[in-house]
């Protein structure tokens, strides 16, 4: 009986000191490469420099209508009535929909129901920009006119947008039914806290008693947006026979298919989704918003519908990151040993349940080897858009708080900040603050590299300061399906289902070329639509190259097995006597003396006579992603009279496991750093007292422009991941984690001011500088 086979040990935690890591079934098979590690041109590049590449809004279907969405101008309002009759009567209008046209097919799946409600408000508008109705018309002008004819009767409710206000007793309730999860006994009254979570080990209170120095501080970070340049766009077509097509810019067309089919009550197999080229996502294109609406409009109008969000809609009604409020306490001995670390993290989720504080709580102390550590996270509901992932979601805010305190603590005990981190860095065998034990990891190596980096010793100019910080991201793998087909001429088609967000087609082709032993140019990598391959998870969690290369390599191995069999048939010898080497079948043994090796081309040419087409497939769950660490160094110049900051030098050092295409790895490092710099200095959602977003555009949501940044130096470290055939780790996300703290630490080092509120915009910096000046 199950109940007999389980025992609870109350309040007993695992020890921190752990026996050396067991690495089960390592699959790392290669460390010496011919093609992996080179820098060829990407296969999709030409289309992208000539304007030929097709993104979300660059596709059209015959007879297509223009879809537009009506959005709530209120942060929180009961929708008493929606009158669409006048809009429906306008000439040229082919469909008007509200939530009534999107019945609930979610079957009790709360997270899917939340998505449904987020796509189209059901009775209550929960944030400024929440979709309330939508129209499809023959042209944009008609659709705009129709939106104006829809009359919505709102009863405005009290709202709350601020994270600290939302958790106060008596705050307006975003969801009056919300009872906090993860608390025992279960609360009886609703609140805006969706969930409490906790991680850690050891005895934190006892640990602090051993401390010689303790630093405690509270931090706030404002909400930011991924800021992809391409707004969400799709073309949807649903026929009366229940089949549908969707062209869309997304990080995961298979997941979009599954979600849209469920929300629309369609069979998954009847909805074919094609991913366009994607104009940036960074986590923001992992969730559906407009797509189910476009499909519902198309279904009602029986015409294809193109729906493109404006930039204003993207800011108000897609998925920005959390605003946060974080308390950190770390204690250390005089020799630099950290004895206890504690953090409480409050993260906004928008109006729906999320796991954002949870991710912050997991990542906060992940860089360090800690005997006593505890993190507590609270998911906070507010009248803001539903939070979505943004590159290493939640880690940058947690790292901002922790890495700021780490610097302060190092200085208080009189240690160099790098040495202090080296002393406490996690290593292979360390129990991570979030639970498991680490395998081979790179935090120590990035710190040692930072210490030796010339940047660390370069002289600083007037009003300049230097800071450093570390960052962590998990990375993950997930479901992946890949095909390799050998053409009759021996050329290779690699078909993957992970969207290429920034050069992965080149990396994947390199891995398959390496495995098959053929030139890179002989492998063409395609991203398939959902009708062509089995399910693939999104390109998120830095998994695109990690998982699809793993599946691609396995598919290539399967193809090699077939190629060997075919060669054996051509030679009329046993397959065991055929080996694969340098892209050729070779007969093993002196008895075959003069048999010339067979190339893929020769084997492929004979395929019709040896058993038909040659292919290799792989369907896997790509588990075992290696965690990733980075150390960044930032030089910041501050104008002491205006508080304006400029980054004058920046260096990223990060472990890639194995850099498949180093140029694109550098690109990920640089891009993440730039986003982190923007977050640190100027990017923020600004809500008015009325709960409306005041800066829904690129003019006042200030992402860095070219003249804001210096060159961003990169150093790639390669500590192979034992759980990938080539040692690859994800590289996409970690680089956004350290910049916030690195810049704050630089300001502290230059001016002695500790910035605790991000963004460190000029008014905040000037105020801090003046406060410091006035004692």
């Amino acid at each position, binding site marked *: 009986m199950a109940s007999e086979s389980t025992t609870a040990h109350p309040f007993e935690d695992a020890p921190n000191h752990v026996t050396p890591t067991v690495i089960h079934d390592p699959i790392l098979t290669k460390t010496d490469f011919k093609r992996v590690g080179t820098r060829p041109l990407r296969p999709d590049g030409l289309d992208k420099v000539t304007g030929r590449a097709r993104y979300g*809004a660059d596709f059209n279907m015959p007879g297509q209508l223009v879809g537009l969405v009506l959005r709530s101008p209120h942060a929180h309002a009961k929708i008493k009535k929606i009158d669409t009759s006048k809009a429906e009567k306008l000439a040229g209008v082919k469909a008007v929909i509200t939530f009534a046209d999107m019945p609930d097919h979610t079957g009790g799946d709360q997270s899917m129901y939340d998505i449904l409600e987020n796509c189209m408000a059901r009775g209550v508008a929960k944030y400024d920009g929440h979709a309330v109705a939508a129209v499809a018309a023959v042209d944009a002008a008609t659709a705009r006119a129709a939106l104006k004819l829809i009359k919505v009767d709102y009863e405005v409710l009290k709202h709350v947008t601020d994270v600290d206000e939302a958790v106060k007793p008596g705050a307006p309730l975003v969801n009056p039914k919300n009872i906090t999860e993860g608390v025992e006994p279960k609360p009886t009254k609703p609140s805006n806290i969706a969930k409490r979570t906790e991680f850690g080990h050891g005895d934190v209170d006892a640990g602090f008693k051993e401390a010689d120095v303790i630093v405690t501080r509270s931090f706030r970070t404002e909400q930011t947006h991924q800021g992809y340049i391409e707004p969400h766009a799709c073309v949807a077509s649903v026929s009366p026979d229940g089949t549908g097509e969707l062209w869309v810019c997304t990080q995961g067309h298979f997941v979009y298919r599954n979600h849209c089919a469920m929300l629309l009550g369609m069979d998954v197999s009847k909805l074919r989704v094609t991913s366009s080229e994607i104009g940036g996502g*960074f986590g923001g294109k992992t969730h559906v918003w407009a797509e189910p609406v476009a499909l519902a409009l198309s279904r009602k109008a029986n015409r294809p519908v193109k729906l493109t969000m404006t*930039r204003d809609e993207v800011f108000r009604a897609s998925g920005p990151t959390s605003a946060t409020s974080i308390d950190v306490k770390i204690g250390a001995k005089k020799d630099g040993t950290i004895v206890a670390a504690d953090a409480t993290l409050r993260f906004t989720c928008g109006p729906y349940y999320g796991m954002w504080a949870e991710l912050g709580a997991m990542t906060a102390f992940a860089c360090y080897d800690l005997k006593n550590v505890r993190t507590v996270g609270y998911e906070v509901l507010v009248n803001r858009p539903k939070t979505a992932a943004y590159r290493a979601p939640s880690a940058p805010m947690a790292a901002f708080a922790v890495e700021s305190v780490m610097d302060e603590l190092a200085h208080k005990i009189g240690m160099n900040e790098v040495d202090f981190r080296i002393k406490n860095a996690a290593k292979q065998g360390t129990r991570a603050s979030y639970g498991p034990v680490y395998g081979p990891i790179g935090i120590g190596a990035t710190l040692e590299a930072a210490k030796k980096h010339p940047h660390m010793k370069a002289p600083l100019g007037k009003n300049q300061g230097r800071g450093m910080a570390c960052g962590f991201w998990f990375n993950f793998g997930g479901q992946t399906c890949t095909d390799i087909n050998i053409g009759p001429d021996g050329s290779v088609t690699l078909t993957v289902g992970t969207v290429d967000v920034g050069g992965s087609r080149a990396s994947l082709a390199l891995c398959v070329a390496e495995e098959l032993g053929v030139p890179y140019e002989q492998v063409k990598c395609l991203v398939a639509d959902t009708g062509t391959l089995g399910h693939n998870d999104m390109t998120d969690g830095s998994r695109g190259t990690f998982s699809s290369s793993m599946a691609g390599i396995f598919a290539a191995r399967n193809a090699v097995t077939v190629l060997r069999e075919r060669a054996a048939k051509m030679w009329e010898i046993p397959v065991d006597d055929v080996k694969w080497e340098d892209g050729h079948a070779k007969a093993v043994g002196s008895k075959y003396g003069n048999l010339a090796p067979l190339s893929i081309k020769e084997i492929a040419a004979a395929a019709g006579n040896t058993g038909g087409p040659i292919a290799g497939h792989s369907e896997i769950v790509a588990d075992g992603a290696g965690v990733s660490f980075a150390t960044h160094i930032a030089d910041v110049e501050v104008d002491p009279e205006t508080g304006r900051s400029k980054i004058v030098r920046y260096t990223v050092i990060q472990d890639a496991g194995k850099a498949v295409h180093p140029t694109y790895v550098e690109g990920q490092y640089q891009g993440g750093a730039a986003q982190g710099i923007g977050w640190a200095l100027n990017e923020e959602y600004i809500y008015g007292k009325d709960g409306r977003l005041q800066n829904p555009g690129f003019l006042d949501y200030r992402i860095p422009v*070219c003249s804001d940044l210096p060159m961003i130096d990169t150093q790639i470290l390669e500590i192979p991941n034992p759980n990938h055939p080539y040692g690859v780790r994800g590289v996409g996300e970690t680089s956004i984690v350290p910049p916030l703290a690195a810049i704050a630490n630089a300001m502290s080092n230059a001016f002695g001011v500790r910035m605790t509120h991000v963004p460190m915009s000029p008014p905040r910096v000037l105020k801090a500088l003046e406060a410091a000046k006035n004692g």
Partner: protein
Amino acid sequence: MAVLVSTTINGDNVEFACEPNESLLDVLRNRLGLSGAKEGCGTGDCGACSVQVDGRVVCSCLVLGVEAEGREIETVEGLAHGTELHPLQTKFLEHAALQCGVCTPGFLMAAKALLEKNPDPTEEEIRFGLAGNLCRCTGYDKIVRAVQDAAKVMRG
């Protein structure tokens, strides 16, 4: 009421009809099939819709289609000569100056305008010259390097 407009696009005579309040960007994308220019914001803040009008780089979202009458317009589709790429296109590829690529057409047009005026720009001149074009993927490092390299090639 739609207005008939005659103009030159990438050296070809083109006639189109458009509404007077329609942007040049919408005309290019929706009426002429030239979707290389992208709409990132529609308010002149991102530069993804950059084209040249009479030799000057503009945001085509901030130009009316009717204003194109008698003008000469150049778009990213006209950058290459036949199969021969413009040096900027070649260098953007070689330096991996694009990740997602959606800002690339705008950057190419802005960089072309910059180098036509200033064939040997400093890094700072390049950075300020391209400040009207947002890129969220690259951190601009490789874009600046590609423009520097292209400038060198173009100077011969």
